[in-house]
């Protein structure tokens, strides 16, 4: 019964515990996949599989349209957030001017405001501009919600780049806008990737904003479409599970491919 032997037993035990946790985490996904490949009768009898629920989903519900709407809103919001955060980050990290820190502080405190605290006036403001049921309205709201954190992230990242880079470029006769497009933008690609992944998941998975600002069926996103099915007391669970899977898939794929950037983004706030 040496030390090495005890150590090995401990490691096997750890592996078993971690496996059990993995089962707890994966079971809901197994349930979704398994159930979606059953018809309603098969679900009740728990025997057999078929594609009938998937066919019902695509035939009876505007899933394609909703996926497209989600894509438009998500891409639009990400594009706007990228423009704002790279320019903002550049201005906060690399340019010197009066009141810079004060403005930065205002942006940072914007991160602390819960969405529910501002959603009502936001709704009325956009209604006055008749931007309800308009993609642009939702895109603006998402950009306003995701902008502060993304700008903060970009500023933190750009502060890490050496100032000599700026000075050398100025000496070479590059103007501030040129430095931004030729030097800062290419260098900030990793931070941009982090922002894209975080915001993709945020916007794609959101319910509240999409539900309030994109109400009519023609502009409805997939997440809202799914919640509407649920709220209409639809009881065909296999079809609901197929819908859940299709709505979750894009964000899960983004997660699987860009996991590294997501972790960076989530823990960036700690490094202060």
């Amino acid at each position, binding site marked *: 019964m040496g030390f090495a032997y005890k150590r090995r037993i401990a490691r096997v035990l750890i592996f078993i515990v971690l496996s059990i946790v993995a089962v707890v985490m994966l079971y809901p996904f197994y349930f979704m996949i398994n159930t979606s490949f059953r018809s309603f009768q098969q679900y009740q009898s728990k025997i057999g599989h078929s594609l009938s629920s998937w066919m019902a989903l695509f035939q009876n519900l505007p899933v394609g349209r909703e996926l497209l709407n989600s894509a438009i809103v998500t891409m639009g919001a990400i594009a706007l957030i990228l423009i704002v955060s790279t320019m903002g980050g550049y201005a906060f990290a690399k340019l010197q001017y009066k009141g810079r820190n004060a403005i930065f502080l205002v942006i940072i405190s914007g991160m602390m405001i819960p969405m529910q605290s501002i959603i009502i*006036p936001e709704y009325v403001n956009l209604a006055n501009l008749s931007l309800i049921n308009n993609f642009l309205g939702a895109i603006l709201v998402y950009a306003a919600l995701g902008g502060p954190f993304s700008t903060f992230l970009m500023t933190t990242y750009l502060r890490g780049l050496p100032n000599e880079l700026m000075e050398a470029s100025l000496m070479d006769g590059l103007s501030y806008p040129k430095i931004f497009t030729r030097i800062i933008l290419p260098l900030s690609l990793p931070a941009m990737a982090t922002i894209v992944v975080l915001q993709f998941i945020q916007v794609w998975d959101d319910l*509240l904003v999409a539900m309030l600002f994109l109400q009519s069926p023609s502009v409805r996103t997939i*997440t809202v479409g799914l919640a509407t099915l649920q709220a209409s007391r639809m009881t065909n669970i296999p079809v609901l*599970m197929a819908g859940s899977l299709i709505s979750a898939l894009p964000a899960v794929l983004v997660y699987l491919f860009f996991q590294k950037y997501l972790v960076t983004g989530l823990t960036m*706030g700690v490094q202060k």
Partner: protein
Amino acid sequence: MIPILQTIYYSFTNWNGFSASWVGVGTYINLFRDSVFWRVLLNNGGLLISISVALFLPLVTAFLLTQRVFAWRFFRSVYFLPTAVSWVVIGMVAMRFFNGMLSGEISALIAVLLTFIWSVFGTNTVIFVTGMATMDESLYEAARIDGAATFQVVRHITIPLLKRFIQFAFITTLITAFTALFSLIFVMTGGGPGYGTTTLEFFIYQQAFTIGNFGYAATLGVVLFVIVFAISIAQMRLFKGNEGEEG
């Protein structure tokens, strides 16, 4: 920034979305006299308590993961997966899973809390694993040579060094619990039975968009902002106090 100022202004009015007339601090007095408000706040209290579990379990798991047993990276990815899944989908599945529990006020709240803990488990685990990865291995070696037991190593080395990460995880989990569970509750319970699972953020939505009581909702919005802000500040103070004690 402008919307929060608008919210503060409207919180003193009886706004119905079209017209608003000034009421003053009376709106807040009415709020604090409303028994439903306190009932809802109690649910937020439940969430606050569940955060301790939502931090403790990931802390233990992260410690096990950093022992780097076979396939630990795979486990880490699996735990993190719910981060990418919407609350709507999570609520949809959780509803079937906790089917029998959603009809009682307390059991429904427990079902929501368990789903919440499950969902943030991976995010917090990854935060702690990242934190543990920044630690100096030689510290552990030294402790082992001194003959410190595993428990002592965790208590006196891991936890203090992880403080920043625990604080960060607490804040993000708090913000999730108080401001991001709307969709989950909307799908899973609709806030019921009764007010059994209505949290402050869900109450705001109900007041504004179901009842049309925008002024009251704005008042609630200010209260929510103040609560999140106050708890954040309080925990920062608390941790600072500990630092003095240990140093």
